[in-house]
């Protein structure tokens, strides 16, 4: 046999490299390479006409740091992304758990298909649909208001469209399938015998859930949270369509700079800082959660 293939067959590490190389190459071409362009723009190494200029300046970074209200936008963005992720987790876990454990083999696949079906419709159309439902006399608004009024939580009907609440509803609606899918795969792989063992040793269902099920499904929770948090934090379409004046996020700011402001330089500076921030958050999150679940990272 070919000596190279022999070495790959024997070394696990080389096997890993070989398997990862196609997606890695894809990422390098379509993500890393364009990102270097953004980075170069942010350092001012491109002039007004798009030609490469050899000089480095940090003025665009300082420009955007000095922008009044930048911290507010930042905090707002993190807030919305975190709340979306938490809500998706709270809503998505029961759904994934029920389908994975309680549904019979026949229906499991149909049910999971139903979770995926919204993706067949364009994301923008779905957001417009939610806009119609959240209008002052829309179906969803009426439903939510009636329930909350009956429960006495609110005194008068509240407006959902063009508010922060509307944005959150839209975000959860759009990102929920991203949470359900990884959770489902993780829960499906649960070894039922471990649960049995837990019951035999005297734990009630709640303790079993907290001490056995949750830690074992942690990979799914991590994957789902990241799949929701990372895109949500860069989201600008949903806040632009469903949000009012207080839903201006980092994504919208970058959009304004690139589009109305024709200022690709400051836009790139904001993008770079933001990408590095999200990268840092992701790494910390994985390390933190992995430790809790006994996963080596």
């Amino acid at each position, binding site marked *: 046999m070919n000596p190279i293939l022999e070495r790959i067959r024997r070394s696990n590490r080389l096997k890993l490299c070989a398997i990862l190389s196609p997606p890695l190459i894809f990422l390098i071409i379509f993500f890393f390479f364009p990102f270097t362009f953004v980075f170069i723009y942010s350092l001012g190494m491109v002039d007004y006409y798009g030609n490469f200029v050899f000089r480095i300046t940090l003025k665009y970074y300082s420009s955007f740091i000095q*922008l*009044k*209200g*930048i911290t*507010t*936008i930042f905090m707002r963005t993190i807030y919305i992304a975190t709340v979306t992720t938490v809500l998706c987790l709270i809503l998505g876990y029961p759904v994934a758990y029920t389908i994975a454990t309680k549904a019979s083999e026949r229906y499991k696949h149909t049910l999971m298909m139903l979770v995926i079906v919204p993706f067949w419709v364009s994301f923008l159309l779905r957001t417009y649909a939610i806009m119609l439902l959240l*209008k*002052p006399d829309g179906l969803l608004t009426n439903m939510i208001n009636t329930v909350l009024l009956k429960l006495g939580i609110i005194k008068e009907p509240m*407006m959902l*469209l*063009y508010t922060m609440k509307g944005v959150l509803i839209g975000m959860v609606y759009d990102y929920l399938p991203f949470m359900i899918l990884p959770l489902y795969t993780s829960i499906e792989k649960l070894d039922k015998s471990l649960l049995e063992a837990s019951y035999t040793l005297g734990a009630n269902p709640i303790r079993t859930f907290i001490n056995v099920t949750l830690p074992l499904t942690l990979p799914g929770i991590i994957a789902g949270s990241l799949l929701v948090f990372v895109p949500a934090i860069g989201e600008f379409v949903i806040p632009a369509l469903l*949000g*009012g*004046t*207080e839903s*201006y996020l980092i994504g*919208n*700011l970058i959009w*304004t*700079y*690139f*589009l*109305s*402001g*024709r*200022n690709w330089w400051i836009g790139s500076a904001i993008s770079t800082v933001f990408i590095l921030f999200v990268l840092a958050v992701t790494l910390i999150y994985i390390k933190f959660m992995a430790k809790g679940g006994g996963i080596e990272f």
Partner: protein
Amino acid sequence: MYGPKIIIIVAIKPKVIEMGEERKLSRREFLRVAVGGAAGLLVGGAAGYFTGSTLTRRTLEKELEELRGRAGLPEEKVIHIYNWCEYIHPYVVELFKEEFEMEEVVYDIYESNDELRAALEAGKTSYYDVIFPSGTYVHELAQKGWLMELDFKKIPNFKFVSDKFKNPPWDPENKYSVPYMWGTTGIGWNKAKIEEGVTDLNALFEEPYLTKYQKKITMLNEVNDTFGAAFKYLGYNWYDEPGLPHIEEALELLKQQKPYILKYASATEFIPGLADETIWIALAWSGDVYVARDENENVVYTVPESGCNLWVDCMCIPVDAPHPDAAHAFINFMLRPEIMALNTEVLWYANPELEASQNLVSEEIAGDPGIYPPEEIIERCDLSRPFTPEEMEILTEAWAELMAAPG
């Protein structure tokens, strides 16, 4: 053509000679004339056809081509148009397609000048043949070298445009653009809900409107229009003062207003918003408010008494347009008074061919002060002029700061 002449000479001449002799016409002679005539007809016709028609056909074809050139039937049978959404009579494109025998008409739409510029920047200068930028953007696009110089030999209908709209500040010799529609950025409001009525910009910036109609007021998502309204309310004509010296004041005013407004809306948001009464007062473009009025008769458009932004949308051809002949033909077609009137009827926007098409436009529109404001008000309106790059930077910073501000 020549055939009949030959027949007449061949058939009639013998008869004339014989008539002179006063002989009675015998049956044989009659037959002779008849057969001779028929044969002459056949021969003459055939000869005429074969010799004459090729000559005719060739001259006819040359004449046709000349006519086609003069009538503007372009060689190219494809055209790509890029226009604002809902900014043309839906039938006009069909009319153009039929009359000019187009095979393919691609009609794409955009929502803002920024979108147009972004598309051109991304390389669409070599895809679209006709674009519709607003006046001030024409200057910027021309500076960047993205616009083709217009060949007015192919646009004879330019003569119908009123002198007021020729040689605008952003294109002093009309090298790159011709005007299409013009309008004002005033206030669209709901006369059933606003009991105080709206006559001026105070409805957007002052009490009691702000608190009473909280979250029912919108401004525009365009930098020029929103800041323009602020400057106008403060009493400044920002087009007269280079460097935008009062930008801080305007920004403060807008920041104060921000908590009371619903959002910075685009046309696709404030038109349905006004129509279904989610929005009661909106800084809006004239024609769009009339579209909302079609759906809800309580919606009214008012040009503020202290004046407002006056803008003109233009037609231009990108520098690398693939079908320039078709593009010129389309622009010429659109400048026809009947077509202008047709567009005005359906869009409720004023057109720049005042004398020609005002006679064709219905009384309802021609007499509406919201669409064709009276002279005194137009005096107080500011015709937009292009901003310098430094001014643009100041504006963008201010806009970003406004967007970031709490509210």
